[in-house]
């Protein structure tokens, strides 16, 4: 009998930390001790804490281990599996309570969560359909097909008040109803797995951890709406998710959950995977459909909406991964149960990605209405290195930043919108005092400019013009009327752009202007970057008192602009050639490099005489 399951996370995060090597080492070590008949290794999807990877969960005890590198495996096996006590070294510490964590239940990051969508993630082997079946997999589909009429399914979804998890929060039941009523055939359902928001990977974690839940949701939706063919449009960057999805689809066909006459009814349903090729705009419904059709992913005006004219001109319903994965639990546990979770307007839970300057990075599922403070300081464990929280960016490049004064706002569609941001796909990127808001705005705008499909001038040219202004500002070449120009352009791009990408592209600029205008002004008027990020506004000098003359900085300097002061064991940075890359700062062990946010001209000390270096031309001797 198998007495213990060792769950090894093999999601993208943990595999990149070496979880496959861990798995192999575990196999070998268990075999060595003759434990391979009683202890089984299960590869699972993402457990949500990629930053602690490779992570592992031992059942039945529920012990949660972090950083389970292959080298730690012998000791782990000895301690836990032979001696039966937790291997303390690999137990994580809860940054909120500063206690060592034994099980997930002891960990604020996990115990605050309510897992509906990610219920199976990190618990089952995503490549084994039977484990999914064991957790009521495809039961909802079976019941729906044999016991419910399509209209009843839609009524149930409407009763649950489920809103689309892709960003806009459109009521799913209503969307399905419109599609149901469309009279044209055939109809298609599409799963949008083109999670392009930088800083968001909840869809990836669901597809890697529980691909069947998405397939089952799509099948239920297809039945309710009268579709018989579905597509999963997934980013090519998500190799592992693609692989697991393919495996899942293959297995679902084998077990008769896809294909012809499912559950003995007349309902046929086929699913195909379409892999994107790196275009953010393809997350937009109409662009996505063009891409599924093998064309350039350029959006089209709506109306007509996809439910009227979608793929190949036929009615098409597009929902995102998380929405599809929510269907199954609703059908299993009922709309009432689902509607009891969340806020008045937004029901259920949302998977969030916590990233950036935060202690607990990872994927967490919480009910709507959780406040940003709870999210960041409890689930997220606060800001590392004792830094100060500055802002949180929600909704990716289409969203905006929310500053500290609004941190007690509940997270739902309406309140985020009120603050000038959006929910988007649920990415939360936390920024601390070292993040420059002009730089952040510039970063997102550059992203949108790069990813603009170029179909309409406001987005194609407007974002470029805005970016040029921001570029200037971050270089210290800002002009007094730049803020006004930015605001005008932003309003125009927002109003006139064809699709969501352009309509929301100005959001980061608008919100940073709204909450951090003084930072823009510091850049423009004082030529200063308060957060010390914008390179052209920085200066690096060596504290001559502290310098011990070890020469590490000089050797690390890529432009050879650090020289030895003649006759002394000191080094000196010649400002003229300095590119402000910060390599010297990173390498100095004596804390003697000073980074300042004033422009170089403010701080440059008088230049001493240097020792000539053989073979190197002396730079500037002004």
């Amino acid at each position: 009998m198998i007495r213990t399951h060792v769950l090894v996370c093999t999601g993208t995060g943990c595999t990149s930390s070496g979880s496959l090597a861990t798995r192999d080492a575990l196999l070998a070590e268990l075999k060595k001790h003759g434990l391979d008949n009683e202890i089984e290794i299960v590869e699972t999807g993402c457990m949500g804490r990629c930053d602690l990877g490779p992570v592992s969960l031992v059942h039945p005890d529920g012990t949660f281990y972090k950083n389970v590198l292959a080298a730690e495996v012998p000791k782990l096996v000895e301690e836990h599996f032979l001696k039966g006590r937790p291997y303390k070294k690999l137990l994580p510490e809860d940054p909120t309570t500063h206690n060592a964590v034994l099980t997930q239940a002891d960990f604020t990051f996990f115990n605050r969560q309510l897992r509906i969508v990610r219920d199976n993630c990190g618990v089952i082997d995503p490549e084994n359909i039977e484990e999914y079946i064991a957790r009521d997999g495809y039961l909802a589909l079976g019941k729906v097909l044999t016991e419910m009429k399509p209209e009843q399914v839609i009524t149930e979804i409407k009763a649950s008040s489920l809103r689309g998890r892709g960003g806009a929060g459109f009521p799913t039941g209503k969307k399905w109803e419109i599609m149901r009523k469309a009279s044209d055939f055939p109809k298609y359902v599409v799963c949008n797995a083109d999670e392009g928001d930088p800083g968001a990977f909840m869809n990836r974690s669901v597809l890697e951890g529980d691909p069947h839940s998405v397939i089952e949701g799509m099948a239920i939706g297809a039945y309710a709406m009268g579709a018989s063919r579905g597509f999963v449009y997934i980013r090519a960057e998500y190799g592992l998710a693609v692989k697991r999805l393919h495996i899942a689809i293959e297995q679902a066909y084998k077990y008769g959950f896809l294909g012809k006459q499912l559950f003995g009814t007349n309902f046929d349903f086929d699913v195909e995977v379409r892999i994107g090729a790196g275009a953010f705009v393809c997350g937009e419904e109409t662009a996505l459909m063009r891409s599924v059709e093998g064309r350039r992913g350029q959006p089209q005006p709506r109306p007509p909406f996809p439910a009227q004219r979608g793929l190949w001109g036929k009615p098409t319903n597009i929902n995102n991964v998380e929405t599809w994965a929510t269907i199954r639990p609703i059908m299993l546990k009922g709309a009432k149960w689902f509607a009891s979770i969340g806020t008045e307007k937004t029901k259920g839970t949302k998977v969030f990605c916590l990233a950036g300057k935060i202690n607990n990075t990872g994927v967490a599922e919480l009910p709507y209405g959780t406040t940003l403070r709870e999210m960041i300081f409890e689930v997220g464990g606060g800001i590392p290195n004792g830094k100060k929280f500055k802002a949180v960016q929600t909704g990716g490049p289409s969203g905006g930043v929310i500053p500290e004064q609004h941190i007690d706002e509940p997270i739902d569609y309406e309140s985020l919108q009120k603050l000038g941001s959006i929910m988007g796909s649920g990415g939360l990127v936390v920024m601390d005092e070292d993040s420059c808001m002009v730089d952040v705005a510039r970063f997102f705008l550059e992203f949108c400019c790069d990813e603009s499909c170029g179909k309409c001038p406001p987005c194609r040219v407007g974002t470029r013009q805005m970016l040029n202004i921001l570029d200037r500002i971050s270089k210290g070449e800002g002009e007094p009327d730049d803020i006004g120009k930015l605001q005008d352009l932003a309003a125009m791009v927002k109003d006139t752009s064809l699709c969501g990408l352009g309509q929301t592209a100005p959001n980061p600029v608008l919100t940073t202007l709204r909450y951090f205008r003084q930072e823009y002004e510091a850049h423009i008027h004082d030529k200063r970057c308060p957060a010390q990020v914008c390179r052209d506004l920085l200066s690096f000098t060596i504290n001559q008192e502290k310098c011990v003359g070890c020469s590490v900085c000089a050797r690390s300097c890529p432009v050879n602009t650090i020289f030895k002061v003649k006759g002394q064991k000191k080094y000196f940075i010649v400002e003229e050639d300095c590119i402000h890359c910060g390599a010297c700062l990173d390498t100095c062990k004596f804390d003697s490099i000073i980074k300042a946010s004033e422009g170089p001209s403010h701080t440059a000390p008088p230049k001493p005489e240097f020792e000539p270096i053989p073979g190197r031309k002396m730079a500037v001797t002004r």
Partner: protein
Amino acid sequence: MIAPKQITVTIDGQKCVGDEGQTVLQIATANHIYIPTLCYLKHLSSWGGCRMCIVEIAGSPKVVPSCATPAVDGTNYSANNDRLRQLRRLTLELLFSERNHICPFCPTNHGDCELQQQGYRHGMDSVRYPYLYPALPVDTSGEYFALDHNRCILCTRCVRVCDEIEGVHTLDVAFRGEKNRVVVDLNGTFGASDTCTNCGACVAACPTGALFDKAAAFRGKLNTCQVVRTTCTECPVGCGLLVFTKENRIVEVFGDHDSKVSLGHLCARGRYETWAVPRERIVQPMIRTIHALKPVSWQQALREIARIRGKLDATQTALLVSPRITNEAAKAVARVAARFGKVGMFVARDESALCEAGTGALEGTNSLSNADAIIVLGAQPSRTHGVLAAKIRNAVRRRRAKLLVFHAHKSDLDQHADICANIVSLEHVFWDRVAEALKNVKRPALVYGAAAMTPIGVTVMARLIQILESNPSRHAPVLIPLPTSTNSQAVAAAGVEPVEDVAPWLDAQPLQYLHIIASDEPDGGARLFEEKPVRVLLERIDCVVVQASYQSELTEAARIVLPAAMWSEKSGTVTNIEGRELPLQSVLTPRGEAREDARILGELVS
């Protein structure tokens, strides 16, 4: 067909009635409400990219492109208000800042450029944003037109027209975002493209000076030109032309959107070959002296002809005419026929049977647009009847109509064909495949050319018709005969005998006088020499009179040359393959002393 439901909407406070399914722009235009557009072009799918035609829907903060938004009954739209005007102006500003739109150096400056017009209309007198001006290449390698990327606003009208009307999809947009660019094939050039048909539809569709005709550039503003509507006589399809002229010179030729035959489309021949290719005109009557042809007056020339003919018996004379003559000229030929020993019309090989077969159905060419199977038998429409080929390509590419091509020569249609075969030596199994392909076809069309009139062609055609008729649910196939000569069917109908082999015709009896009406045959009638013996036979004839527009080998062989009016100088009618009588309008006054064929004939016999 059920009449579409009527809907009522309010646009800018005005009650407008339209049909369900129409866009806001369509209804507005029909009700004389102007909405500015750039990427929109009637007859093309809407793109909705330029953001000029944006309108507001009452109760919604968002703006929508009226060209792509279906009007909803009872809705209140704003098409022109301060906010929209401001947004449009800013859009224009961004467009002007994007690429090099410095007007004085542009062939469409001063009125022909829609971008410029919109700039004026919206009071866009300055650009507040820095000019981005990437240095982009100019492709001048094309035979008739050039592409200057610096002036492109990426409206994709050219791309859509190339795909949706000409059906070759030589153009597309490549790259992404601000790097977007219109490309030819795999980012090649027009000159090197083997898919481009040079139809020039892209140039006609371009709202700016990005695509321009080399022969028309800087020759005059189109909005100050005279415009004449006439018919193309390059082939028997009979496309409508809009000819722009200035000071008795053609500046530009575009397709006529009101033409029932071509709906505004043209092929390279109709659009360019007739005017953008320099040819040596004959501008004066000429009589051969020992050394060369010497210009004379009409009077002298006619007197000389009368002198020669006076000496001859009618049976020693013959009249050979080109099928390009107008119906009126054909009647004139018929009238004077008795005065010649014989009268003939030179046509291409195997084409006389086509002439005798008469013309096809009246809506023949347009019926291709809803045929669900097209059989092309013994014809090469993409070489000889460009506009028809475009219709075939579109039926196949856009509506997935079946295409069966039976021909000895390769053509670009082959790549679209379900079945493509040489008509000689077909096996039984093959016919099963054909029958299979045509099984559920409801509206077949059969386009057949001269090669279908050969014995084997006739057999194949009989077989095809048999297959089509054995299908119970079909309509009778639409038959479209496709002679290559412009007006041959009408000329034959007027009683002029088609002559495929000129040599035996000439050789049948000793001739002393031969009058050839080559009219404005592009080669000046020299195609007669394709039959080798003709040259020798002509040398034997005492007097050869050639009545032509262009100098050629044929005129070199003539004793007397008469200057004939060319297509743009004629008026009258021609009859196309559908039997439509189409008007020819004279566009220019004849060059030099050129005269219309019918008049010359009349004077000849008076």
